[in-house]
């Protein structure tokens, strides 16, 4: 069985070489210093991996999935795909800075599952997004058990969780009981099998659709998020992905979204995040030390929501005049609070509760930094991440 249930299994996995170490180094915002308590992404920072070339590219307001093998993603490598044979986890990590002017700071490891690039920043009304279900793999259906089995794994269908909204296509005829252009919700049976339900509630309850024949041709299942596919634990950030600062404005920034329970028309709370005027490259727009509308660092969600399945609208309440921003969907995995020049923050995830953050196949790992003090441009951070799988 995949995963760990004892210390002995961890030791055995390490002994068998089922482990990968990533040494990383990233420079902070290369164009401007960070004000104390601002959060910045390290996506564009020089280092190892180098700067990304994806977050300021692509079609306006269109969801773009991110994986470790996405061209120019420049995410931190973690040893490649291991599912369904194994499950991969983060075993330990460290972070250090050699610059006294950087500490204290909080360096946060996130898995970025996708983003929406916004170029129409002068539009002050809510703008609808495009959410094409771009992840797809083929499957076959068993009419006797209603169980479907993945027959391809190019987009890591073993990542699909119960409650994920999907749609189906086929080259000929879908299995009887299923229709084209219809939302279904996955009931995860195993890493390689699933059933389908008509609603999210039915999926959670395990009430499957009765499939009465296997259909003909090749059937394909499509879904949106490449990981955390139902949106559980997924948060959002607005950030400047470009090499230049935003224009002058302090807009309220808001989202309309579908939550992880697949409920639509959710909205960020009344007291909205407020973007910083002329937000610098890499800045998470509404983060900062003082004033209203400052959130550090994820966008607040509507009451009770546990995650975002997809973003439906994005709005900046007044024109940003110029520039572009992006809204990324991400899952926080770990935090490394660094306090002292040259003293690494170290985390042993075996002994923390809950232990071992799961690293799904395709995970696009990046760091964010929350500056405790004014952080000079191109300040250097480095460290390591150890992964183990079983």
């Amino acid at each position, binding site marked *: 069985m995949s995963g760990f249930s004892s210390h002995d299994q961890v030791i055995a996995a390490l002994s068998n070489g089922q482990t990968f170490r990533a040494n990383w180094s990233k420079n902070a915002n290369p164009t401007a210093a960070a004000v104390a308590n601002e959060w910045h992404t390290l996506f564009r920072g020089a280092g190892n991996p180098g700067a990304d070339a994806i977050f300021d590219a692509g079609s306006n307001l269109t969801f773009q999935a991110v994986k470790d093998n996405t061209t120019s993603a420049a995410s931190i490598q973690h040893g490649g795909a291991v599912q369904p044979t194994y499950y991969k986890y983060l075993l330990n990590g460290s972070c250090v800075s050699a610059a006294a002017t950087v500490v204290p700071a909080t360096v946060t490891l996130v898995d970025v599952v996708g983003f929406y690039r916004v170029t129409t920043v002068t539009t002050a009304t809510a703008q609808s997004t495009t959410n094409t279900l771009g992840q797809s793999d083929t499957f076959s259906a068993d009419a006797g058990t209603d169980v479907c089995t993945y027959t391809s794994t190019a987009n890591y269908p073993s990542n699909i969780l119960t409650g994920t909204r999907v749609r189906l296509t086929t080259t000929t005829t879908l299995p009887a009981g299923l229709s084209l252009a219809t939302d279904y919700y996955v009931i995860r049976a195993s890493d390689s099998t699933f059933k389908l339900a008509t609603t999210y509630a039915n999926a959670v309850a395990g009430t499957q659709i009765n499939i009465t024949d296997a259909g003909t041709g090749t059937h394909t299942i499509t879904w949106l998020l490449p990981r955390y596919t139902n949106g559980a*634990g997924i948060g959002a950030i607005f950030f400047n992905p470009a090499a230049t600062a935003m224009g002058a404005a302090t807009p309220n920034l808001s989202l309309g979204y579908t939550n*992880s329970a697949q409920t639509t028309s959710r909205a960020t709370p009344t007291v909205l995040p407020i973007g910083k005027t002329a937000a610098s490259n890499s800045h998470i727009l509404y983060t900062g030390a003082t004033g209203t509308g400052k959130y550090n660092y994820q966008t607040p969600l509507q009451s009770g929501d546990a995650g975002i399945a997809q973003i439906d609208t994005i709005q900046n309440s007044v024109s940003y005049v110029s520039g572009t921003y992006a809204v990324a969907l991400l899952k926080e995995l770990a*935090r490394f609070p660094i306090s002292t020049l040259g003293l690494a923050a170290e985390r042993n995830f075996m002994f923390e*509760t809950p232990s071992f953050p799961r690293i799904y196949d395709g995970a696009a790992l990046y760091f964010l930094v929350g500056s405790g003090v004014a952080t000079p441009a191109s300040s250097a951070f480095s460290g390591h991440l150890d992964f183990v799988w079983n």
Partner: protein
Amino acid sequence: MTISNHKQLVDAELEGRVRTYSWRKNPTAATSGGLWFDMALSPGNPPPKYWFDATPGVAQTVSQSADGGLFHGANVSPSNKYLRGVRATPTSSTGLPITMILCDYLLYYPSLDDSTLDPQTVNNSNTLSRYTDGAGVQLMAVTVAGRTGGQTFSVNYTNSDGVAGRVTPNCYQNTSPVVGSVTTSQSVVQLSCNPFLPLQGNDSGVRSVQSVTMNGVDVGLFSLLLVRPLATFIIREFGAWVEKDFWLESCALPIIQDNAFLNFVTCPQSSLASTNFLGDLKVIWD
């Protein structure tokens, strides 16, 4: 459902019912060593909340939606939200070691007058919206206009059992002129109260205040706050984060009620005017 075992805790995290929110406070007050100080009045993120912003003596409720405080996310009812952990670090060693008590600030009576010997009857048109019976709710006097000091006062209140006419022992006012200092905090004087007022007998909480009586005249104003302490930690030295994991350390997660206004009451060892504090709160809900 409540979180009462490891599996429920892990399930909550796996299902995304967890968030970590960063905070920063930049106190500017020239606090005195050993005297408690209310950091709610300090600039930062969240911005300051001033306890003198309403009609004197008229109870004002406090909430995240109206007043801010350390952000802990939206309401989660009917689920329960818990404080999973807290981290904090200063940006310099001045003022350390410092004790910090995370409190839910519930209600305050603004600007009570030090110069009046007559009992100051307060207005309870607003009542507790959280911990409505007053269980565990404490009284804290915060200076909003400085005084000469040295006088005492007592508070007439209704306890958490609903019994009226309860009276605190006399409490000594310090000589600190600093706005935001806990009025009754002292390090060397008898009848001082650090940071909460003692209650009568075996009372365990305050539901409301009826009046405040000065035993000697002075200049100055103080506001009387009703707060519910949630967690305490100490930052011992600069260069080492304090990290509290309430599950691992005690298997008891403080509950953060919906719309709670969270902030810190602190006891520094010297002036905080040149020290900033930053950290985060990790919350989880069932």
